[in-house]
């Protein structure tokens, strides 16, 4: 794969299993993940597929009932697996940050925006109150908050949803991290605000060379901003490759079906392609290929043998027994 020699994020064999009263729930299984500096990688999947669990595991923020295992999780040259929690905590916000979906609950309602951003500079950079406030104003301007000098003393509830999301991003980039993980940062926002946020993420990686892992379920968003795509289904990566390759010529039936099911201008009024059934829950996974009960390509082998994620020509990979045929079908139409 033609990634830059030292990826900002490098994950191998990440698995997360939750202990529940009903028994162990394998929410994420054997995930590999690379993001290079300046690259925007989309982790695409439906609700429950394991995207947020992956993000939290990488950040070292897994919940108490989670058991996280991995062969490797590296941030630049730092081995995160070997790091004690106290060291890990110091990295969060400074070298890697997570932008949550729900901006309102992620901000402290009783602290002004200026104090919340300023605190980052005071604790991590040892700045004075005044310096920290000046930096906060600077950042607010950078993420497109109008009149930042006046608004820096306002509280979270005084901002619109889109502005709060931009404030969260401001906090995430305050210390110039190498990696930003944005977990559905625009799902709750209107399209005009979404466009601003996506543009902001795009400019951050271009101008500051940050690595961005964008978690989303929206194919339109992916098509607009992603360099590479990882498709997640039932806790596993089922396809990966460049956005150009995957969107024009999907190699996994699930990716293909998703693409066919979105309404397009030229299919207006026709029946949409509908994937039968619904996504499995991690506690209750089908045998063989987890997609087989919903797959139009499925053959007998799919019911019994789980296809491995297999490297294909052009640096892409897919986990399907019939990938070659799926790829050929995409070319012949």
């Amino acid at each position, binding site marked *: 794969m033609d990634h830059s020699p030292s990826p900002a994020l490098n994950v191998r064999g990440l698995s997360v299993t939750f202990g529940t009263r009903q028994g162990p729930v394998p929410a994420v299984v054997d995930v590999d993940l690379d993001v290079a500096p300046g690259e925007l990688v989309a982790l695409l999947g439906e609700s429950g597929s394991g995207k947020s669990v992956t993000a939290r595991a990488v950040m070292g923020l897994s919940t108490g009932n989670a058991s996280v295992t991995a062969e490797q999780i590296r941030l630049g040259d730092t081995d995160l697996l070997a790091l004690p929690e106290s060291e890990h905590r110091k990295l969060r916000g400074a070298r890697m940050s997570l932008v949550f979906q729900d901006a309102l609950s992620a901000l402290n309602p009783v602290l002004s925006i200026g104090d919340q951003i300023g605190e980052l500079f005071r604790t991590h950079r040892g700045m004075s109150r005044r310096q920290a406030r000046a930096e906060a104003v600077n950042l607010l301007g950078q993420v497109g908050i109008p009149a930042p000098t006046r608004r820096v003393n306002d509280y979270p509830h005084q901002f619109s949803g889109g502005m709060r999301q931009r404030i969260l991003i401001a906090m995430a980039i305050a210390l110039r991290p190498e990696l930003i993980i944005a977990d559905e940062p625009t799902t709750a926002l209107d399209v*005009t605000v979404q466009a601003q946020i996506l543009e902001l993420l795009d400019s951050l990686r271009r101008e500051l060379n940050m690595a961005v892992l964008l978690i989303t379920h929206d194919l339109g968003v992916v*098509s607009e901003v992603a360099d590479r795509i990882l498709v997640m289904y039932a806790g596993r990566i089922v396809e990966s490759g460049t956005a150009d390759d995957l969107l024009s010529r999907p190699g996994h039936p699930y990716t293909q079906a998703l693409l066919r099911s979105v309404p397009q*201008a030229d299919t207006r009024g026709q029946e949409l392609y509908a994937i039968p059934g619904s996504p499995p829950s991690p506690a209750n996974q089908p045998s063989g290929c987890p997609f087989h009960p919903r797959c139009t390509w499925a053959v007998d082998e799919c019911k019994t043998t789980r296809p491995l994620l297999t490297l294909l020509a052009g640096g892409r990979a897919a986990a399907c027994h019939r990938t070659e045929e799926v790829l050929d079908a995409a070319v012949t139409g």
Partner: protein
Amino acid sequence: MQPSPGDVVLDAQNLHKTFRGGRGQAGRTRVSAVDGINLTLAAGESLGIVGESGCGKTTLARMLVGLDRPDTGTIMVHGRDIAHARGGDLRELRRRVQMVFQDPYTSLDPRMTVLELIGEPLVVHRLMPNAAARRDRVAELLALVGLAPELMNRYPHQFSGGQRQRIGIARALALEPEVLVCDEPVSALDVSVQAQVVNLLRDLQKRMNIAMVFIAHDLSVVRHVADRTAVMYLGRLAEVGETDTVYDQPAHPYTQALLSASPVVDRANRGRMANRIPLAGDPPSPTDPPAGCRFHTRCRLSKDLCGREQPQLLAIGGDANRVAACHFADESLADARERAEAA
């Protein structure tokens, strides 16, 4: 009596709704949620409604089905006004206009079986007092929405989101409405399940000649299902027209901005969003909507007149079927056509 195609089945005129909220800085706040909306719906037609969060879509929907009363205005169904009807009259009118709700997880009572849920409207409206007949009807309705009738003794939590939305649709269809008002019917569903429900709604609509109001914030879904599309901004209609006209040649500057910001799956057009028509500033507060044209604070074409005078919905571009509320709609449309040619 089935309406014939082209008959007006629902005619809403001059709808207003203001909510009195909590205490703001200046005493009690008032939210002008719907401010002067007119809509007519022909038998069997589908009307899409798009607009951003808080613009009044749900408020409008709830008035159309008789769940909320407008402060002023009329909603005529079969020559009678749902907005002012009471008692048995209201019940009779409500029967003809049914709603499908956004969230299939909270809109169904978890303690009721599917049989009870779908049969309830029949009981309330005293249409089928006989339990056996009701059971048959529920089985029929389940089959209609693609669910096995054997499932009628189960509870909502035993179904997936898509299946629950099918149950909600079956319940709305139980009274054989002439109008189905769907408020974001697929927004809460998994991407891979949305197409199932979109197809089902369209299929039912065609087969049963039901008129449909389809509310969504996903512009590509509305384009797919709607014959006509209405665009709302802060409680008012910005533009209404044939769906193709509105999407291909938007006349209102807000419609243009909205469409240009909505991502489409088209890798060749990557960067389209970066070239979008920007909106100035942030959305105004609905407690204090701008005077004149409510969009003028964000509009790239705004002039003095826009802050003073409210533009009326007028036919634009020589097309009697497409109206837009903008003082400079002709200019704006010419601009959109130029952009379309350049692209």
